[in-house]
């Protein structure tokens, strides 16, 4: 009987355009759209940054050491134009109103300090909200400073290598996969949870509140089928819809990488190929399965209680935040899966997925996370059953 109800509800759900949009179309398109937008925006930013002429104002002599070298820096440092100013007040004002992107103030004692081999002072002005300008200023000035340093070593007949007693070689032992997993791995489970939620939402409302609102539940309750069987048949479709939505998101990711070639970086592509293997997908679904039951289990009592589609939607939509907020924990670097976090529902799924992507998953903690999620899923199903069994909730 559960399967008969499941089959009918699935057929009914698959004919609902709104559910299909939420369950298949949007999740499949989200990764290609996000990645295409990200790639095109980042490419256009890079291109714009390379082509953009940075207007640099300066207060000081044109033949000053800094200005002279700045003027002679090759175009690989980015296009630039130099403009002489007589005072720093106007210079700062023009940076504020974006007439200039950078300002250089040469101290009056600069040449004297240079000749006396003392630190010669230069002030650099920039607007930090103009992204990348601080880095560009540092790149200019560090190059000129390095030139000056080399000249000074030569002048003083010093061996530069002798002035560097320790040569430190910094080595990152984390693999690219680990770096992506730990730093950006939270994004992936977040997307799966968000779409798992959206995938469950419309079928839950349609199959419970909708049936009540349309007046079909009464006749269903007069058939010789136990209420728990009706609940399980319907719940099966809600859970499946959530899993399909999450799978569609995964499919979208796959299409973006393998079909649409939205990732051009070979190194990154190799890392992603290393992540998206069958073990990863299976373990991910092992975690998503109880999570989706849990999501369905908290939506169904609301859908059963609500008297109209609108009411159900207005209660379930804010619930999104309750699920999504813990999922956001995955974005914070430093929070890792341990015996405590493995016991926090949703958070454990996100952290376990992060570890899974990074290839550092402790299978004992995975088991604990799975057990916690299963337990909470059973509790949610039990609450759904109690609600659905309450006659005044089921019939209007």
């Amino acid at each position, binding site marked *: 009987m559960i399967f008969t109800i499941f089959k009918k509800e699935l057929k009914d759900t698959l004919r609902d355009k709104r559910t299909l949009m939420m369950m298949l179309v949007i999740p499949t398109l989200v990764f290609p759209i996000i990645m295409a937008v990200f790639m095109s925006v980042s490419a256009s930013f890079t291109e714009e940054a390379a082509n953009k002429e940075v207007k640099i104002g300066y207060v000081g002599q044109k033949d000053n050491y800094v200005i002279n070298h700045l003027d002679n820096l090759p175009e690989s440092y980015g296009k630039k134009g130099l403009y002489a100013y007589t005072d720093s007040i106007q210079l700062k004002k023009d940076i504020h109103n974006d007439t200039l992107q950078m300002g250089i103030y040469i101290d009056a004692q600069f040449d004297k300090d240079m000749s006396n081999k003392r630190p010669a002072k230069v002030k650099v002005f920039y607007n930090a909200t103009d992204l990348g300008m601080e880095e560009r200023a540092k790149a200019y000035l560090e190059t000129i400073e390095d030139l000056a340093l080399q000249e000074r070593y030569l002048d003083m007949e010093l061996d530069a290598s002798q002035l560097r007693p320790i040569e430190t070689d910094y080595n990152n032992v984390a693999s690219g996969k680990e770096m992506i997993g730990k730093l950006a791995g939270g994004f992936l489970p977040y997307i799966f949870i968000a779409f798992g939620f959206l995938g469950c939402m419309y079928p839950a409302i349609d199959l419970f509140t909708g049936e009540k609102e349309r*007046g079909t539940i009464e006749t269903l309750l007069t*058939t010789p089928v*136990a209420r728990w069987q009706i609940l399980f048949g319907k719940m099966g479709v809600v859970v499946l819809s959530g899993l399909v939505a999450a799978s569609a998101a995964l499919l979208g990711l796959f299409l973006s990488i393998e079909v649409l070639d939205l990732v051009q970086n070979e190194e990154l592509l190799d890392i992603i190929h290393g992540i998206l293997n069958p073990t990863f997908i299976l373990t991910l679904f092992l975690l998503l399965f109880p999570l989706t039951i849990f999501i369905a289990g908290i939506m169904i009592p609301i859908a059963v209680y609500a008297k109209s589609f609108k009411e159900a939607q207005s209660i379930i939509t804010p619930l999104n935040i309750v699920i999504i907020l813990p999922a956001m924990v995955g974005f914070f670097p430093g929070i890792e899966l341990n015996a405590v976090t493995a016991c926090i529902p949703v958070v454990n799924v996100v952290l376990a997925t992060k570890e899974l992507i990074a290839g550092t998953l402790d299978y004992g903690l995975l088991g604990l996370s799975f057990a916690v999620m299963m337990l909470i899923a059973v509790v949610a199903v039990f609450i759904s059953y109690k609600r659905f069994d309450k006659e005044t909730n089921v019939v209007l």
Partner: protein
Amino acid sequence: MIEITDLRKEFVLSKQQRKELNTKDSIATAVDGVSFTCKPGRVFSLLGPNGAGKTTTLRMISTIFKPTSGSIKIADVDAVANPTEARKKIGFLTGSTGLYARLTPNEVIKYFADLYGISKDEFEERKERLYTLLDMHDFQGKRIGKLSTGMKQKVSICRTMIHDPEVVVFDEPTSGLDVITAENIIKLIRDCKDQGKTVIFSSHIMSEVDLLCDDMAIIHKGRMLFDGTMDEFKNQMEAENLTAEFIRIVNATKNH
């Protein structure tokens, strides 16, 4: 046969409901000590004004609601103790019954046949008979959402009768229907009677009751005001017509 003895149904009122109903009582009694018997081959009408407790009574008979106390026997099955068994013998149709708009009549009928555990041969035979009787062949494969009210009503009737129930429960079956569509229901009730089925239907329209029923009960505020045959009702009438008599009986309770 339906045998109802001392049926009672109480609902616990939430704070919100108490506020809405302007009452301090935490319990509302929808049905209070109702007893009657509906016999096979006869049509029994449960008559009462809006909010009288008709729907609650019929929902208890069809096992949607569990009674607070009292007993319900459906074709010799104790419906309170064994609701699943009782449901196999009941066909249920209300005026507000909806259908699955995204499915076709064929799919809905098959779904309910499966829920009632009907064998394939039996299903095919009954489906063909009902489709012919109700003239449903032309629209059997169309989505229900695209059908007219009359067509939908035919699908509802077919769904109600697909398991050939011994007892048929109609809760205000003609409410909201035009006379042509309501005629299908009236015909169905008569057919059920002719086939020796037990029929109970609720209504607040006296003319409809007069047209169809053999036995009747008047219910008001959850209590029985009359239980007898239609002839007995007519014989003891004090008002000039049936509707006036119904109103007189209901109003008489206000004076007590």
